[in-house]
Structure formats: C-alpha cells, structure tokens
C-alpha cells in the first residue's frame, strides 16, 4: 500500500481541542467503517512523523473522507493538524487500513459500541454507515468522556438518538457531569454496563475503542457481563490517545 496525497477541503471544530478534517483523495478506493489511515508529515529537513487516525466518515463512492483529530498537549502531530493546517493544504496518507475492527452493512446482529474519549471516531463511522445504508441492525453506544464539552459529534448524536431506537445512546462522564445528571462522575462500571449494554444472550458484536487503559477496563466489564470474548473487537489508542 503506497502513500497518496489528499487535499484538505474543509475544517470543522468538534470541541475546543478536536477538529474534523475533510480530505479529497484522488482515486480513493473506498473504505469500510472502522478503518483508519496513516498520515505522514515531513519537515523541510526531511524529518518525518507518522500517525494513525480513524476515518470518521461512512463508506463513500466519492473521494472525500473525514478524520477527527484531538489535540494532545505534548503531541507532535496533533497540534499541527488541529491548529496549523489550512484548507488547500495537502497531506500524505496511506490506507484505508484494518480488516478486523470494521462493521459491514451486511452484519445483522445487535451492535454494541463502547467509546472512550477520542475512541468515538471509528464508532461514529459505523453509526453513520448504518444510517446511510439499508441495514436494520440495532446499535447501542456507550460513550465515556471527561465532561459534556469534550464529547465529539454532540448535535449529530443528539439528533440520531431522537430518531427512533436504531441507535440508543448512553453517556458516561468521568470528571464533570451536566447539572442534575443521575450518575456521579466516574469510570464506566459493571452497573452501567448492565443498564446500558446489550444483554449477552442477544449475542451482540461489541466494538470498544479508546486509550489502552479504557479498552482493557471495558473489555473486562464485557466479559464479566457474559459477553463471549470472540464477539468483542477492540482498538487501542495510546495512553495519551494518540496512535502512532
């Protein structure tokens, strides 16, 4: 798989630290929800850095894809992508990559999505893919995030969860909750899982994405809830949230 060049055609802030970048990539071969791209940045002296970013947009027959990048405090690439790039800039990318952490429109079983922080990105691609297709698969999303202001795609998820029950959304806030929130701030736990996750007898396929420590924790909770290990697919970002 070789490097191609995409041109930035749109930029959209999702939160105060995260931005969606839309790219047009000539000869884009198409992708499946859950896949990612590798982006390579090169300084004038030849120094280069490569990072992976999940594709946020659903499968498409046109050449436009979107990624959502969260700016990490000590990041090397994310500050550049969230603050420096401009419409018209070109980015080198490789992909789409990944064959396991994907959701195909012909999957009919119930789907459980569990996102930690920026782990929402590939799961959003799956939700968008589901809604753009003829699939009747039922989705549940458990989205764990520090505080409401840190959540990506808030308005879109709000609209989706009001449109019937094809995607049932549960938020978990770890540091700051909205006013009158029924649950105290904290990590996801067994109680929340039993309230919001598909019961194991329905044999859901689960997709868990986020920082490594979040994924390990969520994984353990799912197994303790009786979900078969073979039905759990995971994708770990670095402990800082950045995948290299």
């Amino acid at each position, binding site marked *: 798989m070789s490097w191609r060049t995409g041109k930035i055609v749109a930029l959209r802030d999702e939160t105060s630290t995260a931005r969606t970048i839309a790219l047009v990539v000539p000869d884009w071969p198409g992708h499946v929800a859950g896949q990612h791209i590798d982006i390579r*940045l*090169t300084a004038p002296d030849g*120094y*280069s850095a490569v990072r992976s970013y999940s594709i946020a947009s659903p499968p498409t027959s046109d050449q436009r894809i979107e990624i959502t990048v969260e700016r990490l405090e000590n990041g*090397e690439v994310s500050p550049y992508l969230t603050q*420096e790039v401009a419409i018209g800039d070109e980015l080198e990318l490789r992909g789409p990559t990944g064959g396991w952490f994907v959701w195909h429109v012909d999957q009919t079983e119930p789907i459980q999505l569990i996102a930690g922080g920026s782990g929402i990105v590939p799961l959003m691609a799956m939700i968008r893919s589901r809604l753009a297709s003829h699939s009747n698969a039922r989705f549940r999303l458990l989205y764990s995030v520090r505080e409401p202001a840190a959540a990506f795609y808030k308005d879109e998820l709000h609209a989706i969860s009001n449109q019937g029950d094809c995607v049932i959304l549960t938020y978990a806030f770890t540091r700051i909750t909205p006013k009158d929130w029924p649950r105290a701030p904290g990590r996801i736990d067994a109680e929340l899982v039993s309230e919001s996750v598909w019961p194991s007898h329905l044999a859901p396929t689960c997709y868990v994405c986020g920082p490594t420590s979040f994924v390990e924790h969520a994984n353990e909770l799912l197994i303790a809830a009786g979900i078969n290990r073979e039905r759990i697919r995971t994708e770990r970002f670095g402990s800082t949230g950045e995948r290299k």
Partner: protein
Amino acid sequence: MSIISRGFSGRRSADGAKLPPGQHLTSDFPVLSAGPTPSISHDRWEFTIDDGSNVLQRWDWNSFRNLPTETITADLHCVTRWSKLGTPWEGVSLDTLLANVKTDLPFAMFRSYGDYTTNLPLKDVVNKQAWIAFKYDGSDLAPEHGGPARLLVPHLYLWKSAKWVKGVTLMPHDKPGFWEGLGYHMYGDPWREQRYSEE
C-alpha cells in the same frame, strides 16, 4: 518522494549544538520500549557476570549499592533520531564491576529483565565508557526509563544502553542481541551513523 508539510517542524528544539549526523535535539525524554515495563523489586534484583558456563560475580541490590558510584553527564543519541544532551546520571562504573573479573573473552551480551539483549565489545564498556545507572537527575531511575538500573553506554546509540539490566554474559565471539539480529548495526557508533547492518 514525500511532500513537505507546510509549516511542520515536529517536537524539536532549534539549537546550534553539534549532533551526530541525522540527529535532532529533543527537549523531552521519550520513552521507547519493545515490551512491557518489568516490575522488579529491590529484594528480587540482582546483577550477574557470567562467561556462559559459570557465574563470575553476583550482586544483589544491597551489595550493588555499597559499591562506589559516579555521577555521569551524558549525551544520549537514539537511533530513532532524537538526541538529548547533558543528561545527569549516577551509577556504578563497569570498571568497578569488572575489577575482579579475569577474562580474555572479548565480547559481552547484556541481558535485561524481560527478553531484551544487546551485544558490545568488552573494550567498549571499560575505561570509563559504561555504567550501571540507578539514578537520573538526582532521583531513583523511573521504571519506564529502565529502573531499578540500566546500562549506560553514551558513546553508542541508546539501544545499546539496555534498560532493566540484570547481567552480562562474556562471549568469545560477537553475537547479535535483540535489535542487532533484526537489521540494526552490531556496533552502533552514532558519529559514523552506524544505524543499520547494511552500513
């Protein structure tokens, strides 16, 4: 041919310091690891010198910490192209550890807790060129940087400064360690840019 990313320079300091070819100065201290950080308590830790058949010397943490120590200021050059200058360490010189070892075996394989190994000529770890370091910047060496103790051989690329070191095996012939066996240079002199075995 990569395209140049407008306005990108990475996390590097612009500094006029003289560096080995292909290196860039960094302001932080990256943690690079080929595996999980071992968790070794002081009462389990030991450092041994063997010749492949016999253990020639062994220290536990207490006897190791009773040895004379030195402070070292070292420039670090990682093969992944970052360099960090003037880093402050405290450690026991390999000269001290080898003082009572009589050997004509010319090569050494340093072994770490976990499965990491790295090979060096024995003459590159004597004569004030190498230490078993247990303090960084005045504090106990953190596990992610190789604590309780790591090898420090500043004149070679940093992959030779094995973290979580537990011993050294003296050898008659040079044999490749963990990275040397998979494309990295057997010796690794940053000033001659000896990164890879094809060099």
